[in-house]
């Protein structure tokens, strides 16, 4: 319960910052203001300003939008493709299930970061290629969890009854399997979201993610590097933002798992 609450609050904070940024930010996040360069904490700019005089808090708020955007699209791609594949693998004859899982393992050999760099080399690096790459790399986790859940549901008596009653495979998949594995999928989505946030930050840090001037936490960190010795604050602020988002989604995932499967509550 504690995980769920703390996770919920942290994620809520990120979502709030992102939503609020559509209507209001303390300053224009991309406005260059040479007169107010490198201001410290406090004052009119709560988190200070960067080397161009841009307000850090405003950048963090709009950056939250980028982070959530990447997470939602990447996890969406993974869930929409991975879940049916996993259910298919769990419901079909053994050989087909095995085949789907082998292909799955092969995709697993292309981690998100590597895939995004490859996509960047081919299509040019930006937020879209990063999202798609992270999404594709996350498909196997959804397929795996959906398959193992499906195998469990398929051995239950109510599925046996539905099959005896002549229901089609599709009906069984949609009416019985999907609702029963939705808990597992929600937990997976939360954990995958945290991984997507980390991947986007790493990619932007390497210059393969969100392009300037759109604010992104990873790129803020990268830009902070040249002034790190004199202004560690520039790295600290986006660093904490990333950690808060990742911690939030991980705790939320853990909390939901405890909620949905009390047997696991004492473990991880």
């Amino acid at each position: 319960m504690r995980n769920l609450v703390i996770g919920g609050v942290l994620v809520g904070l990120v979502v709030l910052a992102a939503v609020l940024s559509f209507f209001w930010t303390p300053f224009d996040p991309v406005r260059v203001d040479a007169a107010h360069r490198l201001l410290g904490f406090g004052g009119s700019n709560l988190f200070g300003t960067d080397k161009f005089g841009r307000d850090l808090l405003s950048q963090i708020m709009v950056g939250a939008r980028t982070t959530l955007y990447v997470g939602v699209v990447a996890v969406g791609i993974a869930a929409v493709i991975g879940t049916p594949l996993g259910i298919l693998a769990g419901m079909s004859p053994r050989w087909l299930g095995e085949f789907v899982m082998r292909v799955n393992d092969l995709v697993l050999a292309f981690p998100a970061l590597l895939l995004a760099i490859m996509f960047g080399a081919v299509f040019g690096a930006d937020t879209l290629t990063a999202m798609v790459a992270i999404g594709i790399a996350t498909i196997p986790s959804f397929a795996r969890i959906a398959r193992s859940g499906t195998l469990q549901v398929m051995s239950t008596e109510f599925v046996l009854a539905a099959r005896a009653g002549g229901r089609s495979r599709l009906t069984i998949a949609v009416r019985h399997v999907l609702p029963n594995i939705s808990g597992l999928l929600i937990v997976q989505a939360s954990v995958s979201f945290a991984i997507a946030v980390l991947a986007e930050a790493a990619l932007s840090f390497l210059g393969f993610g969100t392009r300037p001037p759109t604010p992104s936490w990873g790129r803020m960190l990268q830009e902070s590097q040249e002034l790190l010795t004199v202004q560690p604050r520039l790295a600290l602020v986006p660093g904490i933002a990333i950690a808060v988002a990742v911690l939030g989604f991980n705790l939320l995932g853990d909390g939901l798992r405890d909620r949905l499967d009390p047997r696991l509550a004492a473990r991880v």
Partner: protein
Amino acid sequence: MTAKVLRRVAIFVVSVLVASIVVFLFMAVLPGDPAQVALGVNATPELLAKTRAEFGIDRPLVTQYFDWIGGVLHGDFGRSYVTRDTIGPQLLDRLGVTLWLVGAGMLVALVIAIPAGTFAAVKHRKASGAGVSGLSQIGVAIPAFLAGIILVQIFAVQLRWLPSGGWTPPDQDAGEFLRGLILPALSLGLVQGAVLTRYVRSAVLDTLGQDYLRTARSKGLRPGQALVRHGLRNASVPVVTVLGLQLATLLIGAVVVERVFVLPGLGSMLLDAVSSRDLLTVQGIVLVLVVGVLLVNFVVDVLYTVLDPRLRGS
């Protein structure tokens, strides 16, 4: 057991083959002409045709693939379209740096995770155990490159104990080599250590409730002895699986950490090759990394069978 291992070998070989085709096709369908990239926009059509022939990219894709993969099997990754140097020797050199980093990172992770995870499990009802769990949760949320930036700030900039980056080969100066490896390995390993701690805790916690541990205690073993002799081996099965997955994560995480510490590894070679559109080099590096991940998964699968006798027959 032999049949099971042989089956794994077959799956591994087929996976590598398919992965190599995927990597090759991905790079081959690229928009843009490597000859044009190499020569610039003012190249004459004759020169372009000559360069294409020189690169071998005017031949059918199937021929190109077999030519490339045949070379790779002999350690020949071709010549860079941009620098015209042979890719293989440089790749091998860079791989060495990355493997040092990954190995040291793994060591850091294990040294942290096994005691911390076991402690958190044994003391799971105490505040100290919960504290370790909480710390690991925070550790998981810190990206390796951020850990790197913080470590550089503390140990290189403020305290001046260790270099902030750069690479000294081990055969040149072993002391400098180690000093240079500490911060990158820590930034890579601390985060993975936090992830691993959670799994070690969960696995040890699982074995603590088992009957065989109670039997071991009733034989007269002290709790610590029972845990070390009987519990940890059983706990190692799920941990080895995660370790394998993490090794793959470390290999890719090294790409970012190499950037922070300016290490001449495979990751920085990949990023440089991408920015100069040196596609044959990109292709070679991606293949090496992907095969690395597949190899790790294969070894984990086999180890799994060896560690857990119950899986041998099934």
